[in-house]
């Protein structure tokens, strides 16, 4: 490794090939760093805890179509039925499913009047079984009482007296307090209708997976008097797949003027909601792997070419006493010099591309830790690619120097 000087000078005289490899490495690194960054930022998105006991839950969506459809009767009797299916831990009617990308939100204020601090929150209309059926954890306060539960009619403004909010929503509304201290406080919505916080929930996601305030959610003690109904059902661990078809079949058997529109596991709901993200990740992985292969093949091609051109020179070096190891280390050193130049340019390129993506598409900022990792990875790929041709170069006979080919 002590002849970097001559190798470097030789490179300067043989620019084109070196420039091509360096550029290729630089662009490859730019793409790979940003692709990995995208992949991990989507991972972060997807690994957020929704607060639910997802792997033991499923949902059923129904719609009443009969003219004499009695929503209150059907809802209560459906809940009775579901809660009594063997294996079911609990079940609730809910107006919107977390992660389903469809639901309703309201602006919540921490005081009455126009100048109060406010925050948007997803609203879930549920009954007193919600804590158990969702599998959420209360940080402080008490669950709704059965007597709190009222019926919510379409287009009626009656607002209940009590709510439960998530810890993140509590912090947004009362930045100076610990989330637990929000219990007992009064919040306002609409035309300053008051409601008391009876409990703070550790974690619960809003329905919209792309929403910036996904941890802002609020439970309201009302059942919906509506033709649409979602039921969220929680089963004992491991029994979901057996329970779901039974529950659905029992629901469908009832002749009460409503039909089951849809049912599926919450796990499936999650993967449907994040489908675009997982798809993007898979595509990026394919790009990264192919890119590595192409760059490696490009290096193999160009190095083989330069070695062929320098056969005689290599033979002469061998004749003058260079060992095989010397020849191999010559080409490895040369390649490290070229690849290193490439990855240094690649660092600048990666940051530049990320800055552009941040400003154009609001993507997250690059974590700089990826830069040294990608540099090392590409240097390794470069060395692997050059090793084969270098080995062949080392086997060029010293006699080549004196022979006419």
């Amino acid at each position, binding site marked *: 490794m002590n002849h970097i000087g001559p190798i470097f000078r030789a490179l300067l005289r043989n620019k084109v090939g070196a420039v091509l490899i360096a550029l290729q490495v630089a662009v490859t690194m*730019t*793409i790979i760093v940003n692709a990995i960054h995208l992949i991990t930022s989507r991972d972060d998105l997807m690994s957020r805890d929704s607060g639910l006991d997802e792997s033991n839950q499923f949902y059923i969506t129904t719609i009443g179509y009969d003219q004499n459809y009695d929503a209150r009767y059907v809802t209560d009797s459906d809940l009775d039925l579901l809660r009594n299916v063997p294996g079911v831990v609990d079940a609730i009617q809910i107006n919107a499913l977390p992660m389903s990308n469809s639901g309703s939100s309201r602006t919540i204020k921490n005081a009455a009047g126009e100048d109060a601090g406010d925050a948007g929150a997803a609203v879930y209309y549920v009954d007193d079984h919600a804590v158990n059926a969702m599998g959420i954890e209360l940080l402080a306060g008490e669950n709704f009482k059965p007597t709190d539960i009222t019926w919510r009619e379409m*287009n009626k403004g009656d607002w209940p007296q009590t709510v439960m909010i998530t810890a993140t929503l509590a912090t947004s509304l009362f930045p100076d307090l610990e989330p637990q201290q929000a219990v007992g406080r009064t919040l306002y919505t609409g*035309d300053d209708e008051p409601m008391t916080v009876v409990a703070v929930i550790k974690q619960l996601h809003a329905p919209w997976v792309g929403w910036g305030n996904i941890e802002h959610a609020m439970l309201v003690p009302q059942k919906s008097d509506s033709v649409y109904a979602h039921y969220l059902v929680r089963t004992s661990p491991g029994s979901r797949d057996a329970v779901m078809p039974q529950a659905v079949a029992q629901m469908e058997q009832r002749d009460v003027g409503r*039909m089951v529109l849809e049912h599926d596991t919450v796990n499936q709901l999650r993967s449907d909601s994040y489908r675009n993200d997982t798809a993007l990740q898979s595509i990026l992985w394919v790009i990264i792997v192919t*890119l590595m292969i192409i760059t490696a093949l490009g290096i193999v*091609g160009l190095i083989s070419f330069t070695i062929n051109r320098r056969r005689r020179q290599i033979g002469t070096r061998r004749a003058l006493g260079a060992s095989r190891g010397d020849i191999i280390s010559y080409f490895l050193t040369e390649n490290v010099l070229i690849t290193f130049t490439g990855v240094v340019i690649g660092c600048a390129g990666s940051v530049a591309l990320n800055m552009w993506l941040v400003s154009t598409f609001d993507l997250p900022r690059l974590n700089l830790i990826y830069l040294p990792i990608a540099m090392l990875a590409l240097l390794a790929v470069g060395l692997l690619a050059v090793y084969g041709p270098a080995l062949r170069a080392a086997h060029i006979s010293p006699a080549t120097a004196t022979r006419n080919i």
Partner: protein
Amino acid sequence: MFMYYLRLAWLSIRRNPVLSTLMMAAIALGIGAAMTTLTINYLMSANPIPDKSEQLFYVQLDSWDPNQPYSEPNEPPDQLTYRDATQLKEAGAAKYQAAMSQSAAVVEPEGLGKKPFMAHLRLTHNDFFDMFEPPFLYGQPWSDEADKQGHLSIVLSKKTNDEVFDGANSVGQTITLMDKQFEVVGVLDSWELKPRFYDVTTGAFNNMEHGYVPFKLRETIEMPNSGNTNCWKSPEGEGFAAFLQSECINYQFWVQLDSAAAEQDYMSFLNAYVEQQKQLGRFPRPLNNRLSDVMEWMENQQVVDDDAQVMMYLALMFLVVCLLNTVGLLLTKFVAKSGEIALRRAVGASRTDLYWQHLVETALIGVGGGIGGLLLAWCGLQGIKTLYGDNLAGLAELDLTLVGIGIALAIISSLLAGAYPTWRACRIPPASQLKTQ
């Protein structure tokens, strides 16, 4: 001479099969990636109604909260209130105008073995059909009278007609929706809009509706609205009527204006309308009304997915890597041919002759790479369809234009990649390569 060059190119490609395959593979991979992502972006940004996109305008009125704009910096809301939608319709100041919103209802088909199903519907005025010109298989739009009175009329999509009436001419028949008997007045032929530009508020690439019903039914039989509803203040009073009169927005409004003058007139009309509403204590914000034609509206609503764009830029950079690779391999290949090049120079070929010969060779490699690239793009699109499922339905299909673009892109990029190596090959001094080395 071209045929001669073509034959030489073919011989040269066959001479180094590994190198040639490598080059074609590099171009094919680059083109494949670029075409896969270009296809999706191209289809997402396609003009859904090219003949009329400059005559159809989306109406926005700034009816929002005095304290903050609907969205920064000062964007008017993306939908109208029920009140404004109906009043603009009644005013009839444009050639055609239709309010609309998304709705849904359970359809109970008659006949054995047919199950009730959830139908996606569009509440709208009959001008909808004059503006967007969907093809009718049977019948026609409902009458103006039906618009005014809110008749139980419906225009079915072809698919729904196939499902419910087995594809027969169902005009005059009835269909049960929300437990009411709707009369079928028309049946559309196949009609797919990508993007479904007339309502992008719930997703620009959603499926087309099962049927279309008079807008008035929203009020008379309280058909539900399943789109997005946004309110900056609560309805004044209780009940459905109060809700309809509220400042909640959830209706789209389109007009057809055939000339720039008509567009100006309509804008003046809108401003006058808002001024008049201000007298009634509404519209607390400064005048900020908008008319956007179809493509302006698509741009404003950013119907092309960010992920799709990011992927396209990454894929184009990927193509750059593949081309750099090809430049290197072509250099290798042409230097290996320097003996032949020198000989041809010696026996009288000019630099231009040799430049053409190698350009043809490069282009032939480009064509090979392009064909490979299109195959890869096709596979890529199949893969993307599997990964995205319905989320990208209809947006991952190659058409003839795209195939043409793909081949052209391949040839242009291979010629770009070939320019320097060819130039260098033709600079080889003939004398240097003819002596025995």
